[in-house]
């Protein structure tokens, strides 16, 4: 049976074939139905979901960095501004052989060894996917040259960016400060204050001075642009734009012209000068010598300049005006005198016979007056005019340290003044509690004596001297010193005043203040310690000289300026206000190792006042002597 050849019926076979074909046809239609169902599900039911995904793919939000606010002085002179420039930037993560790429680059665009070093430093501080500048301020020609060779340098591109510039360089550098690239530490702070979104796209931040303090005003509000991007992330076209809001402008109380004059008359001395308006607290000039060029920091400072600034024994980066703490010396005496009058410890007519030294009962130590043999009969007025130490030794002893502290601290000593720059030092205004806490020792009566003449534990910043002098000049009104007078809203142009009201008004008796001021005026007149500096002035001004020891003198040893190393010489101090009847300016001046206050610091004040009140330039700045050397 099995061997028999079975002949099939063609008709049956054909109909079976057609049945199978029919089944296949049904399967075809069924599977196309499955596809159609899938299309319906994806394209209709899930359409919104996939539409959103496609939009997400397509649209990217790009931050638009706002223009940083300007900083201008009280007359509108620009101290910090922005300019657009081309930079050549490298994204290290996109470059295979960085060294070779930079070498090749030199053939196209000039790259100095300094640029390389700075770039290396930037790389260490940044993440490798960031675009870092190797050259800034490319000329049009360099841009064109690179553009033609661009294909050779993947990961390297030219960007137009806004740069910060400080057109006045060293002038007012400590006040204006500078910006620098955002560091990891800055990022933590930005995050802490919830500003991360606003800093997307920003790569610089205020690091020093006003740039740092007013960062939030200056930065502005970052805008956003919705752009269509391709799968490589390249922007194809812009869809919508939320423009950025520029940072607010800072209008300073500072007068750049006065600042420049002050710096000029400081000459080669190290030191600091603070000039402020007693009736507003506005800082007219804030000098710290030596200074530095803040422009060095903007694009990342190169190691050579950085080392130079850091190893310089004169420490140009220190803002001596508010970070330098010095014994106030005799400039402290007017405040002591005012305390004596206000607290009723001395009457104006109270007179001592000065033997040239002061002794405490039961103590052998002699506190010497600067003038051997003494000043004879000395009352309060004379004690200021001729700067009698003995008078203040006794006064300090009578007041007691805690009373001195409590009174003088009201004028701003011993605590930060609250000026609008970071890094301010509080100085030291000692009392018993302070010594116990600081040295774990009780206060001795002898400790009080030298505090009376601004020595001992006493330390003050030049800023505090200016503020304290300003309080006397303004008859007790205490202002928080501030460099910024007004903040200009970039959108509305509305001006907001900074600290316009006094922090407190001390209720001094007018006659007491007048007495101290009158004595200070006589300091600058014939017979006063600054009589020579004040000679011939066409206005009356009050002042007080001071000289602060840098090294302690042994008992009985005589100070000889010529024998002492330059850096061990006394600091010269001077405080002043002018004009005497209606003060518009108060000064605190410290000249490091300048010797005597009357001979070094007071003439600086005089020259500055001549310019501020009369418009008279100091000799070294007068036009006909333009070429002459600046040294005094």
């Amino acid at each position, binding site marked *: 049976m099995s061997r028999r050849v079975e002949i099939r019926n063609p008709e049956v076979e054909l109909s079976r074939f057609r049945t199978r074909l029919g089944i296949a046809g049904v399967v075809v239609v069924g*599977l196309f139905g499955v596809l159609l169902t899938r299309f319906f599900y994806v394209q209709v039911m899930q359409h919104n979901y996939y539409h959103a995904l496609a939009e997400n793919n397509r649209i990217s939000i790009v931050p638009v960095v706002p223009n940083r606010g300007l900083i201008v002085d009280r007359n509108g002179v620009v101290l910090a501004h922005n300019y657009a420039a081309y930079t050549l930037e490298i994204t290290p993560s996109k470059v295979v052989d960085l060294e070779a790429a930079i070498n090749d680059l030199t053939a196209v665009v000039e790259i100095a060894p300094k640029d390389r070093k700075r770039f290396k430093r930037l790389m260490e501080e940044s993440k490798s996917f960031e675009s870092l500048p190797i050259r800034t301020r490319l000329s049009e020609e360099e841009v064109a040259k690179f553009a033609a060779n661009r294909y050779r340098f993947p990961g390297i591109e030219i960007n137009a960016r806004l740069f910060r510039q400080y057109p006045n360089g060293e002038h007012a550098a400590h006040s204006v400060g500078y910006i620098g690239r955002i560091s990891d530490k800055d990022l933590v702070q930005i995050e802490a204050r919830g500003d991360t979104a606003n800093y997307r796209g920003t790569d610089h931040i205020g690091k020093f001075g006003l740039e740092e303090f007013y960062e939030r005003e200056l930065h502005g509000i970052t805008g956003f642009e919705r752009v269509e991007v391709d799968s490589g992330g390249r922007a194809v076209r812009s869809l919508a734009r939320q423009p950025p809001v520029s940072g607010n402008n800072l209008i300073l109380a500072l007068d750049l012209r006065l600042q420049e004059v002050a710096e000029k008359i400081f000459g080669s001395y190290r030191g600091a000068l603070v000039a402020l308006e007693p009736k507003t607290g506005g800082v007219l000039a804030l000098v710290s010598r030596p200074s530095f060029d803040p422009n060095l920091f903007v694009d990342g400072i190169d190691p050579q300049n950085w080392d130079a600034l850091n190893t310089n024994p004169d420490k140009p980066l220190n803002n001596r005006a508010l970070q330098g703490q010095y014994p106030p010396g005799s400039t402290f005496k007017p405040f002591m005198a005012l305390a004596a009058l206000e607290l009723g410890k001395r009457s104006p007519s109270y007179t001592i016979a000065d033997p040239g030294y002061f002794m405490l009962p039961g103590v052998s130590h002699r506190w010497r007056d600067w003038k051997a043999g003494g000043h004879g009969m000395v009352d309060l007025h004379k004690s200021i005019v001729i700067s009698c130490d003995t008078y203040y030794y006794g006064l300090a002893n009578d007041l007691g340290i805690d009373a001195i502290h409590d009174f003088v601290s009201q004028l701003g000593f011993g605590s930060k003044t609250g000026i609008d720059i970071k890094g301010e030092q509080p100085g030291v205004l000692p009392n018993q509690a302070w010594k116990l806490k600081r040295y774990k020792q009780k206060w001795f009566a002898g400790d009080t004596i030298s505090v009376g003449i601004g020595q001992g534990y006493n330390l003050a910043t030049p800023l505090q001297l200016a503020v304290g002098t300003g309080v006397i000049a303004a008859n007790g009104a205490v202002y928080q010193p501030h460099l910024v007078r007004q903040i200009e809203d970039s959108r509305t142009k509305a001006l907001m005043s900074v600290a316009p009201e006094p922090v407190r008004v001390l209720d001094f008796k007018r006659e007491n203040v007048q007495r101290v001021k009158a004595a200070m005026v006589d300091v600058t007149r014939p017979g006063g310690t600054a009589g020579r500096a004040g000679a011939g002035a066409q206005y009356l001004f009050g002042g007080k000289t001071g000289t602060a020891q840098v090294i302690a003198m042994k008992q009985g040893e005589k100070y000889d300026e010529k024998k002492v190393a330059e850096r061990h010489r006394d600091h010269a101090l001077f405080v002043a206000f002018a004009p005497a009847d209606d003060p518009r300016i108060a000064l605190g001046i410290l000249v490091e190792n300048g010797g005597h206050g009357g001979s070094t610091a007071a003439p600086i004040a005089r020259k500055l006042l001549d310019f501020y009140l009369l418009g008279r330039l100091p000799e070294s700045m007068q036009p006909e002597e333009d070429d002459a050397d600046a040294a005094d």
Partner: protein
Amino acid sequence: MQTQLIKRIATFLGGHIDSFLLTSTLLLVIVGLMTLYSASEQNITRVTGQLANVGVAFAVMWIAANIPPHILKNFAVPVYGLGIALLVAVDLVGEIINGAQRWLNVGVTRIQPSELMKIAVPMMLAWYFDRYEATLRIKHFVVGAAILLVPIGFIAKQPDLGTAILILASGFYVIFLAGLSWKVLLTLFAAGCGSLPVLWSFLHDYQKRRILTLIDPTEDPLGAGYHTIQSTIAVGSGGVSGKGWLNGTQTHLDFLPERTTDFIFAVYSEEFGLVGNGVLLCLFLLVIGRGLLVAAQAPSLFARLLAGSIALSFFTYAFVNMGMVSGILPVVGVPLPLISYGGTALVTLFLGFGILMSIRTNRKLVQT
């Protein structure tokens, strides 16, 4: 006399052309060229290049249409034999491109013998079953399976899983239509399912990944899942009416990979939406339906089986490709027939259509 000449020319040119099949495939080709224009960023040279491929394919179709089925039958064994020989050659001296050994360098050009097998295998099987038509028994199906599995073994080894599956399907259609009993079919199906784990172990890692990706494409969004995710986004974001020709964002912003070849359906679907997809499915159905009709009315078993296999294979290409792009089938390298860019596939397809036309126009000439 002139009309006589024109008539003769018309008969010579169009005598064996099936206008229904020609029209529907032509419509698909036009859709393909339009989509290619969009997918290639309006690159006209890409479109004219494909147009040249269409010209060659048409010539091949015309020649095939003019070879009567009983003559064609004589080609079955030599072509199959040549195909096997070439596959052996590929295995021995083939060029390796992208990790797969699929090409044979014959001096002027590279050829891909597996492409030839798409037609040669069903033709060989149809010839074999036709030859033993009257006495077809189970042993003939065993031989048929061998005829099918030998070339598939070579192709799967290259590896070219996509083509292997497609040829397997085309051969299976011949066997199915030849009348393999349902009992055996169901047994084979059960055995196939049972051996899946074994087959799985033979798959390459990238093939396994593609299948796993289908289950959860988000598991590897930048690797194996990227194609599926982006193409599904393209299809889904097209919505009912599509984003409009040349306006697909997934396409033009470079998110779609392989968008002129294997993934061209995503481009079409994004720009023409559900409506466009419906139209495309209808066009495909017209071609498949015509093919099945040709098979039903074919004069010989050889012609029936070959025509049925060609029609169903065409369906398979379309289904696998659209299923892959819309995310219900794993990613295999199968282009969308008549739409995707590429000359070889087009020539093979039109060779098949030519054979269909020949069978169609010769249905009364030869008696069974």
